[in-house]
């Protein structure tokens, strides 16, 4: 059952995230260079880090899927990437707002982290179209996992390449996490933890939904009620266990 501990997780993520944002607002000091604007940091960076972590987590599940052939791993990989894409949109939008606030431009190419993130985001945007263009379900699952593994390895490599491409980075809090003042650091870490908890909660929530729907379908078939014909779909089918 995917639904177990969902309640605990939901409460924990809300408490941690709210606590983190409160710390960011009232406890962490104002940034010397950027002032109040720097507060976006506590939202934007956890969003981006958790989204990237989710992509790598999706790749891990995909490896397990290829290794064991267990279809539930494919579902987990699919939902992980799906959730990361949603958080990724948030990271791109907040990053863009930050760029506008800092440099008066909605997009800056000399911010390597943002650029690298965009490339990875664009790559993962093709995950759903790829799945959708393969009809056979087994093949769809296998090919999607191959994509997830490749893209998962690509993620850190791309960061390396883009970061090195622009050695003259603006001196920014983002690139100097090691020398963050203690209060800022604590607030940031709590925000990051909260975002990670939220990601796990949403991931489990989505899995629970898919699993419930699969069980409903199987029950429907058993009772002989008409099952609506399923069209071609990009989402993997949950297995009833």
């Amino acid at each position, binding site marked *: 059952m995917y639904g177990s501990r969902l309640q605990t997780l939901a409460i924990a993520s809300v408490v941690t995230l709210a606590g983190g*944002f409160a710390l960011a*607002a*009232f406890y962490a000091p*104002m940034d010397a260079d950027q*002032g*109040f*604007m720097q*507060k*976006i940091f506590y*939202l*934007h960076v956890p*969003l981006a880090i958790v989204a990237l972590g989710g992509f790598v987590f999706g790749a891990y599940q995909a490896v397990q899927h290829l290794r064991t052939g267990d279809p539930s791993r494919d579902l987990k990989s699919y939902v992980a990437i799906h959730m990361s894409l*949603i*958080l990724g*949109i*948030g990271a791109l*939008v*907040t990053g863009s*707002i*930050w760029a*506008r*606030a800092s440099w008066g431009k909605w997009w800056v190419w000399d911010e390597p982290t943002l650029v690298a993130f965009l490339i990875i985001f664009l790559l993962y945007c093709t995950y759903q179209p790829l799945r959708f263009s393969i009809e056979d379900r087994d093949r769809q699952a296998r090919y999607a996992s191959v994509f997830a593994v490749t893209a998962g390895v690509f993620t850190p490599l791309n960061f390396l390449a883009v970061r090195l491409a622009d050695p003259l980075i603006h001196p920014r809090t983002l690139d100097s996490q090691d020398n963050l003042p203690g209060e800022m650091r604590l607030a940031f870490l709590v925000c990051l933890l909260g975002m990670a908890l939220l990601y796990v909660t*949403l991931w489990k*929530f989505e899995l629970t*939904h898919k699993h*419930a*729907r699969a069980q*409903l379908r199987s*029950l*429907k078939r058993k*009772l*002989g*009620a008409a099952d609506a014909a399923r069209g071609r779909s990009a989402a993997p089918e949950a297995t009833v266990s």
Partner: protein
Amino acid sequence: MSDNLPDNGGYVAAAYLVFPALVLIYVAIMAIRLSRLERDLAQLNEAADRPAPDEVAEPREEVRAT
């Protein structure tokens, strides 16, 4: 805190609004899916009330047809 709030505090507010907006969109999508689940469950409930729908329903229709 409010005394040193700079001009572009609006950007910070906007960024922090993006986040609940995303979550709300997700909740809305899940709401649609939930209502679909509920509808299916209601159908199933009806199906469960009629015992063995296949065997009962079909012969009856054949009788009517002849």
